[in-house]
């Protein structure tokens, strides 16, 4: 069964729009949740979240974790064409790492 579920699977927006990407999980011995951006090749790290309710922010990107409801969101404001990528959510639990299928974001000029 899927331990990490991301939604939506894909999203097409116009430049300047704000998007919210969702990641829900169901694991035992949760340790951390990570967001990655995958363009052509290697996933690049965005955020690591371990505590509920503490927003992490980097420029136009922000993310928050809810450990009670077992989900995280990734927000991107004022989207740009360079934000087009697959956004991966991963959960570390019991010393293993579980990835979602990713959300494919396309930003149209």
């Amino acid at each position: 069964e899927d331990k990490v579920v991301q939604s939506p699977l894909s999203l097409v927006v116009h430049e300047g729009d704000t998007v919210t990407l969702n990641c829900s999980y169901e694991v035992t011995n949760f340790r951390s949740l990570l967001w990655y951006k995958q363009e052509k090749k290697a996933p690049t790290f965005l955020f690591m979240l371990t505590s509920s309710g503490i927003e992490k922010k980097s420029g136009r990107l922000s993310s928050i974790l809810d450990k009670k409801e077992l989900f995280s969101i990734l927000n991107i404001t004022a989207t740009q064409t360079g934000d087009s990528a697959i956004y991966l959510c991963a959960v570390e639990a019991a010393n293993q790492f579980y990835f979602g299928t990713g959300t494919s974001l396309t930003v149209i000029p």
Partner: protein
Amino acid sequence: EPEVTQTPSHQVTQMGQEVILRCVPISNHLYFYWYRQILGQKVEFLVSFYNNEISEKSEIFDDQFSVERPDGSNFTLKIRSTKLEDSAMYFCASSSLSNQPQHFGDGTRLSIL
């Protein structure tokens, strides 16, 4: 900025042959990982490695797979007798500590014929 490097970028091999995928983690990192991503599917954890031994492995990482750190810089993944279903992108990653984010290499695309 230091990065994880993987070679080759693409490997084509006949079924049943052995392959070795190579990775050079970031130099001061202590934790190393292999993942695979079958085309169109999610990234899957294979194995983590620390202090010259496997820390954790997934169900995918069966007896056909092995990892090694043959010297101070390389980290390799060996698949002993490849199968068609081993065709995938294989990513290496490293982190400085176990609770720090992992940095990924660009991957090796393995194609089994």
